[in-house]
Every structure is written in structure tokens, then in C-alpha cells.
């Protein structure tokens, strides 16, 4: 078989080619195909959830989460950077990248999700409870809120627990006021507009929603979006999602990743390395020879090889 220098301009046999014709046909085919798919199969649009819909649909979960925000026991309250200093965040060996990046989006779960929104109500009962809360020590706040959060969790479906001895301090009032505020829709507005009257940043309401113990993850589970359902690459309903993220999703399904407290940094780092390796395949001595050893190219160029063999 005749050999050609791949670094030089091709000097062997050629065939007629019209790039503009090929591009035009490709564009028309893709346009017709995608228009047909859009018309026939449409696209999903599962309505966004709100703090109002959460408090209405799952009141017990809402009040337990609200009490948890005050007790500092929710995911956001214990998160660490970039929201707060409650933890160091995930680490890769000795490397604490999350901590190094710092607290650039400061969130105080108790203040930002409960106390400050209630302060916008101008309600005398709520204001008295806020004053009592803000006037207490951190230890006292934690004792009140933790015992109330535990009582609510034990009561399971209750939205309030009676407190004849006052051992929960102002927490029952704070939580029930926030619950009423959420049901009315006012909490959505207060959290969304806390930084700007014309919001484009939904960090606060989404972080609060993500603290939900059962409502928000339950909705995702029903739409097969949870992590253990390969949710990263799924879409709501039966529509295809980001299937190209299959490898990213795959690592979360197996050990040591799925049981690691540092799963996110492990998977992100591994995917970063694999992606870099893929880009740099031409520089790897063994990897760049794989296509020569596994002769799929003989299928791709079968016509050429056949004609070359005839010429031999």
C-alpha cells in the first residue's frame, strides 16, 4: 500500500467536493429534524416550587426545617464556605480547596431565613419574639431551638408544640409566624428581594428550600432526579436530559465515592483529570496508539483500503 506523508498537503487521488452544498444540506436536515422533534415531542416544564407551595403541601417539613435553621442543624447552617465558617468543607487529601476559596456568599441561616424576613412583617408578636431571640446568648438560642426542633421531629406531623413552661423561649412564635408568612407567599418575596428589589439572584430561597428534609428531595425523587437515580443526567418526565454527563453521574453510584464525605471534590477532581487526559491523548505514548491497535479505522476507511489493495 502506498504511503503518504500526513504532515504534507495530500498528493494522492481526490474526489469532487462542494463544502457549501454539504453545509447547506446539513443545516436543512438538522433544521427539519429538530423542528419535527420539537413539534412532536415538545419539552418538559415542571412548575417551579416556592416556599409558599412547600409550607402548604408539607407544613410539618417546613416548620421542622425552620426550627432547624434557628438551631443551626440544617445543611446550609452547617455548610461552611462559601456561605459560612461552620465547617471547612470538603477536602482532597490535605488540600482544603473549599476553605481556601473563602466565604464569598455569606449566609447566616437563622438570621437570613427566619429572623430578618420576620422583621419585615411589622407584626408586634413576631417583633417581641425577635427581640427576645436577639437579646439571648448563642447558647440560650441553641438550647431553645434545638429542643423545639427535636420536639417537632418527634411529633412528626405537628406544625406547633405547646410550651406551657416556656422552655422553647420565643422559638414557637418565630416558627409559627414564619409558617404563616410562608403560606401567604410573603416569605418568598422577602427572601427573594432581601438583597435587591429587582432580584436575579435566588441563592437565599433556594438554599432554604434545599434544607427541606422531605418535600424538595421527595419531588426530585418522584421525577427520578436524585443522585442515586443518576439524577445528574436526567430530565423531568420522560424527556432526555444531559446524558453526556453519564460518566460524572457514574462515579456517584460506586464506592469509594458514594460513601465518601468528600464525594464532590473527589468526583470533580477525577473528572477534571480524565478530561485533561482526553484532551492530551496525542501526547500519551500508549494511549495515542490505541486506534492503530484496535482497527475500527478499517471500517471507516474500508472503501479506500479496498481501492488501494486493487491498485497493489
Amino acid at each position, binding site marked *: 500500500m502506498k*504511503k*503518504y*506523508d*500526513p504532515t504534507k498537503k*495530500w498528493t*494522492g487521488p*481526490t*474526489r*469532487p*467536493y462542494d*463544502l457549501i452544498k454539504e*453545509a447547506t444540506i446539513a443545516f436543512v436536515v*438538522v433544521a427539519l429534524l*429538530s*423542528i419535527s*422533534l*420539537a*413539534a412532536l415531542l415538545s*419539552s418538559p*416544564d415542571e412548575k*417551579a416550587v416556592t416556599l409558599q407551595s412547600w409550607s402548604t403541601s408539607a407544613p410539618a417539613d417546613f416548620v421542622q426545617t425552620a426550627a432547624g435553621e434557628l438551631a443551626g442543624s440544617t445543611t446550609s447552617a452547617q455548610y461552611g464556605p*462559601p456561605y459560612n465558617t461552620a465547617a471547612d*468543607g470538603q477536602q482532597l487529601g490535605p488540600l482544603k*480547596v*473549599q476553605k481556601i*476559596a473563602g466565604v*464569598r*456568599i455569606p449566609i447566616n441561616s437563622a438570621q437570613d431565613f427566619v429572623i430578618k424576613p420576620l422583621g419585615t412583617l411589622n407584626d408586634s408578636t413576631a417583633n417581641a419574639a425577635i427581640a427576645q431571640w436577639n437579646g439571648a446568648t448563642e447558647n440560650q438560642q441553641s438550647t431553645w431551638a434545638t429542643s423545639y426542633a427535636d420536639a417537632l421531629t418527634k411529633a412528626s406531623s405537628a406544625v406547633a408544640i405547646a410550651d406551657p413552661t416556656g422552655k422553647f423561649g420565643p422559638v414557637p412564635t418565630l416558627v409559627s409566624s414564619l409558617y404563616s408568612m410562608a403560606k401567604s407567599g410573603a416569605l418568598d418575596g422577602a427572601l427573594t428581594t432581601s438583597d435587591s428589589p429587582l432580584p*436575579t*439572584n*435566588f*441563592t437565599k430561597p*433556594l438554599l432554604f*428550600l*434545599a434544607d427541606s428534609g422531605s418535600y*424538595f428531595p421527595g*419531588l426530585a425523587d418522584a*421525577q427520578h*432526579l436524585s*443522585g442515586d437515580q443518576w*439524577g445528574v443526567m436526567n430530565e*423531568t418526565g420522560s424527556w432526555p436530559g*444531559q446524558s453526556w454527563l453519564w460518566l460524572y453521574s457514574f462515579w456517584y453510584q460506586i464506592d469509594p465515592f458514594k460513601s465518601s464525605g468528600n464525594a*464532590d*471534590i473527589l468526583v470533580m*477532581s477525577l473528572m477534571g483529570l480524565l*478530561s485533561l487526559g482526553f*484532551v*492530551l*491523548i*496525542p*501526547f500519551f505514548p500508549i494511549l*495515542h496508539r490505541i*486506534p*492503530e491497535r*484496535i482497527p475500527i*479505522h478499517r471500517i471507516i*476507511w474500508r*472503501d*479506500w483500503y479496498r481501492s488501494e489493495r486493487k491498485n497493489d
Partner: protein
Amino acid sequence: MWTVRVRKATLEKFEPEDLLPDSQPAYVSSWIYVFGVLTIAAFMMLIISGLVLTLEGPAWWHTSKYGHFFNSLHLWNVELFFLFMVVHLWGKFWMAAWRGKRTMTWVTGCVAFFASIFTGFTGYLIQTNFDSQWIATQAKDGFNAVGIGAYFNALNTGQALLIHVSLLPIALGVIVVAHVILVRKKGVVPPIESSLE
């Protein structure tokens, strides 16, 4: 003078016939070669459907049947775009298309693939529906864990929106143009058994 060097590196080394050739090497006769141009066609359709969606804002498609149609068009274009690109990419892998000083052609193609993944991801973040809420709250942990989340906040819809409709399409467009220029300049890689390497 750097301006002269730029001219020498571009116009003087790039003949018009390279850009729009009237012939191709005879070995360019497989269906696999169609997937590169199909990927670019899908990219153009993505730009068109995306531009239509920008006309009335990110929430338009929730309330208008026309908006919903263009959202569907955008979604199916994304699916086709990735399908074509993945087939194109694997085709080029099995051809060892980096041979003959074509390393940068391979590298720009791979970078375009990964840039597309991030562009597609930011698109999912700005749907302003339940899917985008869930994706944002889950993805934040990955970004936060590697320190990126302190700068790219998946929960900040405005940030994701602007990045998706301005920064990333421009960046992706530049990478794709560079990739296509390299393909045209270097030519299509010859078959493995017919190469001197």
C-alpha cells in the same frame, strides 16, 4: 513588527482554496465525515433558537405556546448537537486524527466539547422551573467543593443567564472557528495504514 507577523501567520499561510476546496482526498468517503458539519449545523440552529428565546426574556416560554415551541426547539437542538458531536469526536479518536501535526485540531475539538458541556449546563440552570431549581441546588455542592462555587454561584440565576447567553456562546464560537480553520488548513488526516508515520 507584530502586525506583520500576524499577517504572515494568517493570510499568507492560508490560501482561499483551503477554506472552500473543490476537491477532497479520495479516502474522505464515509458517513462519519458528515458528523462534523452536522455538529456545526446544530450549533447554528442552537444560536438561532436561543436568540429567539432571548427576545422576550427567560420566563416567556412558560406562558406562550410560541415560546414553549422555541424552548422545545432549543432543547432538541442541544440533544442533536451533543449526539453529532460525540459521534464526531469518537470517529476522530478511532482515526487517530491528531496525526500529522494535527494535535491542535484535536485539542480545540476536545475543548469545544467540554465548553459545550458547561454551556449546556448553564442552559439547564436558567429554565426557571423545578428542574433548574433542583439542578442548581445539587450542582452547587460540586462547584463549592473545588472552590469554583465561591465565584460561579449556581443559585444565582442572573449570573448563569448572562454567562449562558453571552460569554459562553462567544467563547464556544471562537473555539469552533479556530477548530474549523485548523481542519481546513491541515486537511483531513490520511488513513492509518496509508501514512508514513
